[in-house]
């Protein structure tokens, strides 16, 4: 290649790079303007830092390796690391039903709701007037026909005031809603601009306490995120509050949770391990069978086998639930000629059933990766082994399988981690059931850790996001530890066989 051609090519690639990075920067500027407009400083900072990193890495001469890693790294940080950290943080708060607002907002809402119409007080016809200084006034006509302006007797609209039409009220509705005219033993207010009622607040706020004006009960702000009276009565809504380690402590010390969650952990482990084992065994068997050269219709078989993988898993799961129904399902009625097998109603059989359904859902994936890996095993290796006198079983056991495991090992670990948290299959096939009536918490025989936590956190009186986040973080740590150990094992395999 001539120098001219080479420099021309370099120029072309530079232009391409400028265009791409320019596009990224243009998008970033748009993002910055948009986030600035809504004052979202967190996202603003993230965009700023990410764009600076992109510009530096792609224009500096010393960062060749980072050019390949950076896009993946940015997505990893945003979609994985950030999510995990945020979940762990939420585990330190009480966020959930009743604790969705911040404190000022919760207080504002409690006070607004506490202003109640005086029982039995009549409705007033009201008009909102604007005075000469453009301040708002309330002209009210009671049921007795007497008219008042801001509480003082009046005969009608004064000459220097004018009635505001509805369209103008819309623009000034905060002012209209805030109008209070002392009348009788409360104050007149209007919420629609045409009818008014006499209302009276029943709570008074001072020094971070709320006092009931009728009963005298005092509600103090507590670290539980509620206004709470001495006898434990709370005012809703509460607010978000950092509760420290409470959620994590509860996960380990609550007597009712400990024993059930331990047995659930054992089943979760067994479910994940057996799911990987069965799907891998079936996938490998089919891959080996269909790997034979000269098999007629190989393409058709392979396409057919991938079909279960192509249907959304929750749909397949729902279909399976219907088919496994004891009295009306296709399996008992159609396949087994009127058998009465409690597929999903018996504790042990339900476990077998979810494993079978998961086998159906999972084997095409294993079939695909094994087919790919088999084709990567060099033919010479097999031939050499055969010349050395290895039989078909020995060939598979000593040569093919170890070589397969080198490339599929990491995927098996990933599959284990995925099945450990396979909420979809459990939720749609059995819902965790059949129920265990003797368990101290709501729990079913096929519940995995993740679905058991879902039931504990969301099955009580209200959803406890904070507790759910704490439990998820613990599960994340468990899965991460198991996966790390698994990856170490596969690395050892790699070193032996490569």
């Amino acid at each position, binding site marked *: 290649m001539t120098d001219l051609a080479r420099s021309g090519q370099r120029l072309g690639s530079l232009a391409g790079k400028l265009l791409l990075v320019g596009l990224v920067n243009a998008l970033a500027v748009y993002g910055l303007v948009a986030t600035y407009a809504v004052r979202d400083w967190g996202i603003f900072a993230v965009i700023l830092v990410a764009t600076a990193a992109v510009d530096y890495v792609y224009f500096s001469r010393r960062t060749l390796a980072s050019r390949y890693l950076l896009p993946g790294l940015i997505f990893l940080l945003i979609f994985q690391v950030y999510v995990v950290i945020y979940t762990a943080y939420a585990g330190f708060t009480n966020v959930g*039903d*009743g604790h*969705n*607002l911040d404190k000022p*907002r*919760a207080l504002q*809402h*409690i006070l*607004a*709701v506490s202003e*109640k*119409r005086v029982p039995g007080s009549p*409705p007033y016809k009201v008009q909102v007037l604007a005075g000469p200084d453009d301040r708002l006034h309330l002209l009210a006509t009671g049921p007795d026909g007497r008219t008042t302006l801001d509480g003082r007797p009046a005969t009608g609209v004064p000459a220097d005031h004018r009635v505001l*039409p*509805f*369209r*103008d*009220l*819309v623009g000034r*509705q905060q002012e*209209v*809603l805030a109008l209070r005219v002392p009348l009788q033993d409360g104050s007149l207010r209007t*919420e*629609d*601009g*045409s*009818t008014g*009622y006499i209302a009276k607040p029943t709570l008074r706020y001072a020094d971070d306490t709320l006092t009931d004006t009728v009963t005298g009960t005092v509600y103090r702000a507590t670290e539980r995120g509620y206004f709470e009276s001495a006898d434990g009565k709370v005012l*809703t*809504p509460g607010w978000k509050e950092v509760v420290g380690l409470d959620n994590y402590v509860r996960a380990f010390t609550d007597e*009712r949770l400990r024993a059930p969650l331990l047995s659930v952990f054992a089943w979760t482990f067994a479910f994940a391990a057996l799911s990987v084992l069965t799907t891998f065994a079936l996938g490998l068997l089919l891959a080996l069978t269909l790997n034979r050269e000269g098999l007629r219709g190989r393409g058709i078989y392979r396409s057919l086998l991938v079909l279960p993988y192509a249907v959304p898993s929750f749909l397949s799961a729902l279909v399976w*639930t*219907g088919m496994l*129904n*004891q*009295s*009306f399902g296709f399996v008992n009625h159609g396949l087994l000629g009127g058998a009465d097998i409690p597929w*999903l*109603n018996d504790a042990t059989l339900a476990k077998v059933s979810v494993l079978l359904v998961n086998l159906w859902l999972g084997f095409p994936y294993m079939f695909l990766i094994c087919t790919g890996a088999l084709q990567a095993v060099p033919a010479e290796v097999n031939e050499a082994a055969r010349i050395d006198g290895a039989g078909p079983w020995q060939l598979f056991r000593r040569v093919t399988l170890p070589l397969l495991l080198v490339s599929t090992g990491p995927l098996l670990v990933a599959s284990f981690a995925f099945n450990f948290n396979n909420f979809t299959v459990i939720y749609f096939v*059995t*819902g965790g*059931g*059949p*129920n265990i*009536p*003797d368990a*101290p*918490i*709501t729990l079913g025989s096929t519940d995995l850790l993740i679905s058991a936590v879902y*039931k504990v956190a969301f*099955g*009580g*009186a*209200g959803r406890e996001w904070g507790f759910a986040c704490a439990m998820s973080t613990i599960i994340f740590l468990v899965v991460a530890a198991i996966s790390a150990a698994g990856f170490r094992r596969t690395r050892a395999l790699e070193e032996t066989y490569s």
Partner: protein
Amino acid sequence: MRRPALALGLVLLAAACGSQAPEQAQPPSPSASATSPAAKGEATTIVEPTDGPIKRAAAADLVIWADDTRSPIIQKIAEKFAADKGVKVAVQQLEFGDIRDNLVTQGPAGEGPDVVIGAHDWLGKLVTNGAVAPLELGDKLGQFKEVAIKAFSYDGQVYGLPYAIENIALFRNTELAPETPKSFDELMKVGLDLVKQKKATLPLALQVGPEGDPYHFFPIASSFGSGVFDVKADGGYDPAKLLIDNEGGLAFAKALDGWRKSKALSADVTYDIAKEAFNSGKAPFQLTGPWNTDDAVKAGIKLAVEPIPSAGGKPAAPFVGVQGFMISANAKNKLVANEFVLNYLGTPEVSKELYDSGKRPPAMTSVYEQVKSDPIIAGFAAAGDIGQPLPSIPAMDAVWTEYGHAERDILLGKGDPVKLMKQAATKIRDKIGD
């Protein structure tokens, strides 16, 4: 209570095109107010995708969230409101169930609506999260059925304008079962005889499903004198007084066990199986609600809707659900919202139009009087007249699962019915006590 899924991600810009049209030159009018420009009102409907959080429609004076069956009517009323008042209205169409959760999460974030259509049993969640504002119905209070107002009351305040009442009743296939059964035993006998004669596959289509179904079993339980929560002095439910394992509740548990043995009820019946059996003429009776009327009639079933016969001697009271309009506590335009809900939606004409589209018994007494000549509506109302509002307190969340499991486990024959019911009650008390 299921509703067909919406077409995903579809965005209709139905009336939005109107806003693109150039403003017509208006002749100067001496009557126009000096300060108010002659604003042109308009109303648009936006169909929202079913996944992800909903964002408030921008640049509207009033935003309403409604589901697909109600949004066309609301759009019509919104058009009139917009024209009368010169304001911009946006109707955002959501999946019914998504309205509640989005109101809680999106409201405080400033992306919530001003008005929603919803069910009264959301109130516990909405009030504890500070998501809805009280509504002063004033003189209108007396125009609604008492049970509807009671349902929309929470801690002594009214939170919604009710429009429809919903409860289950007995569906009877008059070809299979020509006579109204006088008692639940008689109903079961008629049903079982038909099964024996191979004229039916289910004596009574009553859904249980994988989690049990306390909503559909409640009329039977209440006829034994059981209930979910006792009532406090102010008329609200008391979460500290659970009734599912009272004397009547245990008698109900034993009765369930009896129906299991006589094969009158099966835990394997799901919503789909129950509906299919009744609508194909393979079950003489079904306990279900107005959401199934159309399909049963379309399937050619000669349908009678009647009060549920008593199994335990006391009236079989179904849960009554009330639907209505609520105003968000985080409404950007509360004044407009109040005006719209009270003076436009809260009229007999609108109530009638909503009735015509959904055929749920109207909550407004005067409108109910107009439509009660329809025997199906009258049947639902007769069944619901002895009903009690579905508890809306948050503690109810803890009841559903365990109460359902107890019923299902008894029907599966998993042990002593009395013990199973008591175990469930213990777990529920535990959860509420937390």
